[in-house]
């Protein structure tokens, strides 16, 4: 399932770790993530994410070296 951050999600970062989900991301309103159902359910229930369309972005490196704010990543575990 594809999800993305809500605009003005109000957080800088989120992570989920457990047997069904292994996900970590910094806030990035442009990022689309492909995640499994348990991960999507937790993220959507948390109110910070919404369903999305588009091409999932697996990983995006910093635009400029040392620019941590532009970094986001998807560490979705393949179950």
């Amino acid at each position, binding site marked *: 399932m594809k999800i993305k951050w809500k605009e003005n999600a*109000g*957080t*800088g970062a989120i992570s989920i770790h*457990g*047997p069904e989900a292994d996900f970590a991301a910094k806030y990035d309103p442009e990022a689309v993530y492909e995640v499994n159902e348990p991960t999507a359910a937790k993220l959507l229930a948390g109110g910070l994410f919404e369903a999305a369309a588009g091409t999932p972005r697996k990983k995006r490196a910093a635009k400029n070296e040392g620019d941590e704010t532009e970094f986001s990543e998807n560490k979705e575990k393949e179950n």
Partner: protein
Amino acid sequence: MGTVREYEGQMALSWKKQSAYGTAVTNTDLIQALRMTAFPDADFKPDMVNDEEVFGKGHEWATEQNIERFNTALKTDFDLTSHSAAFLFAFLFGNVVSTQLEESDAYSHVFTPMAIATTKQLPVTSMVQQLSSGFKKLLRDMALNEVSLSCSVKDRAKITGSWIGSGFYGDSALATMPQLITSPYLKSDNLQFKLGTKASEVDRSTDLTNLDFSFSNDALGDEGYRFDGDGYRRECEIGKRKMTLKFGLRLAHDSDAEHDRLFAQTALSVIMDFVSPVMVDETYPHSVKIEIPNLAYTATPIKVDGKVVGHDIETLPMYDETLEGAVQVTVVNDVPEDTYLAASV
């Protein structure tokens, strides 16, 4: 050459889990240390076999002894802090959602008992116990079997974890032992104890005399060995999880409400919210909140503490449809997201 004193010991911990049972947390992740209130005695007792009872030797003495299986157990005792609670509830429950709070330096960590459809293997971690310059051992594959949290109005809140390892207790190459984390105590008088019907809980902190909470994974330690030769435990899975909550409430002159709740089997909710006066940053305090949204009394015997009469209440925590579980623990501290239960690689 001297001998070692208890107070010389140190423990290195990690908030991260092992990537797999049998694969230790890397030394670069063994960077945490917490104040412990008792010496963490690593109960390293391999199962031995000998021929003492064998017939035919012509004497009563053993002539050989061999290690059959390895086993380690460890008890860790802490004062309750946002760091000790998060460490224990992470490995006790095995599931966490961590969120940075409003771009602050504070993070919320919501721990819930893990689903067991995918795996029943508890998350495991590694620890290094250094007792002297010559004794530094790696405790590997440590699974948290049980956590107990207790406090009384007269004493500081305590939290204890009972661990089961694979039996690996070998030399560690960790170069530097970490320094203790500065973490504010969550004292008994930092507790707000709320009790009542769900969503209508009432602050009963002034009536509360003591509380005891425990959660067990019923870890299947003996079932974790396999026919593969080296004698170490190969897994440590969840058995049948169990939770208990007991607390004492002073009896008010004008009320027999707790007595009635037992007979009516009223569905109740308990929120135990420890909030430190010390802030993580300017807005968010260090805190530990335990929510049990659906329980009923199993006994409310009268007890006398000094000359004060009260109830010694025992409860049965039950499944809550909304939570889709029986308990949830929320910790706020300064540990960033992607740390608790992240795999060490």
